[in-house]
């Protein structure tokens, strides 16, 4: 076991982690621990754009953007946070441009902007061009640009280091962060990083679904590390299903395709979104579009022999426009489906895409251990966190924005805290839990296979807690997950070595997915209403009286070691927007 000492440790090197690292490296001795090489992070998969009311191509302002974000999140958004997001968006985009990001340009040479779902002029009047983009690889360009600037700033990376435990020490009745414990993939060695502050920026948890746009590596490692140490997870029942994933594969096809004029059609060729969202049509918010697609499918208007998908039609757009604005997604259709989008519509279905919930933080990125208490030295930003700017449903282009705005804020706050704080003394045997976890898995001889349990988990999640949920389906999922968690105790790995043991890591990742899936299902069961991405057929309406509040899920451990989930609730911060019925 090696012990390292840094002012600030950042867990994860996607957009949020690297944006934080650029700030914190300037101000404090920083280490970035990432389970992948930084440029492999899934920020690079984001396509369509990053919202900011630059008003480069038409009238716009950040107040409209704030409103759209709150309405998009079905009023579960903390309005103070949404205001910060929309206001600081403008500088966030300009910062990136100055760092070198090659944005698309207007004829006048300014940053060009395109339409995107849920973004409107003047509180819902009509779609507005607010998304700044770089072709359909905006996330790729953000990831590259941030990595390039990390090189420029001399950020210190520990590549292929898996953080498996968060060290919390109680001092005077307050939980404080003492550092993290990590597993080095290349050698199997365990490292303790003692630090004054820790920032989680480790991304989402979408791999507990089968049809998902998420990478294989998005397994909720940061959420699980904090949750197991008794910290709450907020709003985990809210998961976004992106309307346009490639049929059966789930690969993302950007909403920018509809922003450029693409149309969703059912088997009769009908532009069905006109029925569900007369004003915004194909550009309604994602939860609305995904539900509409499934309604079409359920009512027998789906395409294909099994009627299990609909079409994204780009055939009326000029090929030059597709080549210039949507080169990557048109290539995905060619590569993976053998379809030519110039002439044929693309079969799509909703795909699990984004966790709105996560580790609760305030607007400085400080992690909360309950509704109000800050954990000194602990921060989170990006998809792993819940500020909450996305509420019950995130608007497209607001996640690339979120990682930049709150990544920067967390980076500054964590580094400044490190200047004022002392190291917290490490607990005795700081690596004990991780050592035990690794040794147990390596020596286990059980008969269960990781891949089998993971597949069953993904199937139950797709079947029971996806776009449509009922008490019964959620209960089925809760039971199944319970059974899988039991079976997981009997899991073994084949690779017993120390070198690049990805077999072992997949087993650990599965443990994280199982815990988080359970939190998601249990939180969803208790929310007896429909709001944003959480739709209960048995409670189809939003219930502001009983459920205008954030879910806070805690892990409780009984004396015998058996764990359970305790739910609590946290009020939503409202500033100036009163909840209204949501229409698009």
């Amino acid at each position, binding site marked *: 076991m090696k012990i390292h000492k840094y002012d600030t440790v950042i867990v994860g090197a996607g957009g949020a982690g690297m944006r934080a690292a650029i700030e914190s490296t300037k101000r404090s001795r920083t280490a970035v621990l990432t389970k992948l090489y930084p440029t*492999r992070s899934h920020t690079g998969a984001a396509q369509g754009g990053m919202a900011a009311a630059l008003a480069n191509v038409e009238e716009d302002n950040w107040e409209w953007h704030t409103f759209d974000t709150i309405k998009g999140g079905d009023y579960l958004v903390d309005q103070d946070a949404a205001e910060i997001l929309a206001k600081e968006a403008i500088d966030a985009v300009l910062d990136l*441009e100055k760092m*070198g990001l090659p944005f698309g340009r207007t*004829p006048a040479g300014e940053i060009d902007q395109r339409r995107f779902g849920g973004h409107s002029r003047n509180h819902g009047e009509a779609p507005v061009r607010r998304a700044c983009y770089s072709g359909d690889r905006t996330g790729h360009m953000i990831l590259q640009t941030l990595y390039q600037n990390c090189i420029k700033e001399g950020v210190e990376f520990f590549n292929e280091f898996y953080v498996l435990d968060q060290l919390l020490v109680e001092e005077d009745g307050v939980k404080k962060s003492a550092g993290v414990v990590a597993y080095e993939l290349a050698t199997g060695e365990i490292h303790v990083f003692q630090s004054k502050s820790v920032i989680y920026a480790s991304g989402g948890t979408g791999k507990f679904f089968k049809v998902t746009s998420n990478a294989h590596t998005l397994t909720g490692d940061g959420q699980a590390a904090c949750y197991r140490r008794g910290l709450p997870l907020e709003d985990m029942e809210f998961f976004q299903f992106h309307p346009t994933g490639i049929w059966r594969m789930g690969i993302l096809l950007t909403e920018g395709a509809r922003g450029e004029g693409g149309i969703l059609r059912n088997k009769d060729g009908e532009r069905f979104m006109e029925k569900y969202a007369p004003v915004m049509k194909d550009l309604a918010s994602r939860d609305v579009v995904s539900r509409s697609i499934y309604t079409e499918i359920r009512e027998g208007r789906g395409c294909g022999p099994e009627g299990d998908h609909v079409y994204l039609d780009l055939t009326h757009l000029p090929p030059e426009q597709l080549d210039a604005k949507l080169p990557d997604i048109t290539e995905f259709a060619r590569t993976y489906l053998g379809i030519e989008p110039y002439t044929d519509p693309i079969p799509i279905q909703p795909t699990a895409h984004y966790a709105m919930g996560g580790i609760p933080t305030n607007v400085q990125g400080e992690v909360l251990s309950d509704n109000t208490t800050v954990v000194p030295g602990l921060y989170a930003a990006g998809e792993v966190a819940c500020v909450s700017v996305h509420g019950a449903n995130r608007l497209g282009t607001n996640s690339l924005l979120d990682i930049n705005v709150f990544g920067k804020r967390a980076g500054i706050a964590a580094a400044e805290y490190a200047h004022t704080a002392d190291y917290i003394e490490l607990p005795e045997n700081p690596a004990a839990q991780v050592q035990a976890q690794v040794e147990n898995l390596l020596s286990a001889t059980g008969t269960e296979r990781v891949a089998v349990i993971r597949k069953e988990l993904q199937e139950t999640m797709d079947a029971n807690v996806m776009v449509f949920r009922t008490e019964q389906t959620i209960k089925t999922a809760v039971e199944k997950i319970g059974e899988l968690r039991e079976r997981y105790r009997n899991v073994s790995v084949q690779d017993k070595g120390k070198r690049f043991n990805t*077999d072992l890591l997949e087993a650990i990742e599965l443990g994280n997915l199982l815990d988080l899936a359970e939190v998601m299902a249990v939180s969803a069961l208790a929310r007896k209403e429909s709001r944003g991405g959480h739709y209960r057929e048995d409670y189809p309406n939003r219930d502001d009286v009983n459920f205008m509040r954030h879910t806070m899920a805690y892990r409780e451990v009984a004396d015998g070691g058996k764990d359970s989930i305790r739910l609590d609730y946290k009020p939503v911060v409202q500033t100036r927007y009163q909840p209204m019925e949501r229409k698009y």
Partner: protein
Amino acid sequence: MATPTLDKADTAGAPEPGFADSPYITVTFRIRRFNPEISEEATWEDFQLEIDPKERVLDGLHKIKWELDGSLTFRRSCAHGICGSDAMRINGKNRLACKTLIKDINPSKPITIEAIKGLTVQKDLVVDMEPFFQAYRDVMPFLITKGNEPTRERLQSPEDRERFDDTTKCILCAACTSSCPVFWNDGQYFGPAAIVNAHRFIFDSRDEAGEQRLEILNDKDGVWRCRTTFNCTDACPRGIEVTKAIQEVKRALITRRF
């Protein structure tokens, strides 16, 4: 406007990405295994698997890892060609395993899979990427400007933006560099990927360090080592015209115009 209907799609014969409705075939993956914890020797190992030919080589590797041999080791993340994790030599050519469909590489014969060349193999298909990223860092891959920052964005015409569009697509997968015979013989050569990324900044109208970058590439291990074999362009999964970018850098070195 063409209004697509069910009929049209069906008769267009667009191949369905089906799993249930398509026949599984048996293929052999012949994989170059290496694990110094067990042996200093690398060996070939055959795996037979039943798979839908429309699936990716990566799906086949997962099938092996998840069902047959958990110790098979490779990097991967996104599974759709945008993260750059899984460049490998498939039937002797550098490709991304997640962007190569089994049906496109003649599955009637054993499919050979080995680590990319020119970088030290650490285990099975995993190589040491450090020298590759070092060459990337050496070309100063970040925007360098002089003078005060403007308050708004720097202006750039769509034409100027287009000038370096191709080379911004790079995902640092190393398929190009590890297909280059010059790099195989001499790991000191910067390699095509580093040059591609230098090109991305040299031809960016906002950048003011083109001269500096060109001097770096003028080095004995720089662009002049390139023998224009086009392996890199063939290998690039992002369709970047790598050789053309290198030629443009060479030309800029001669004319000092860019």
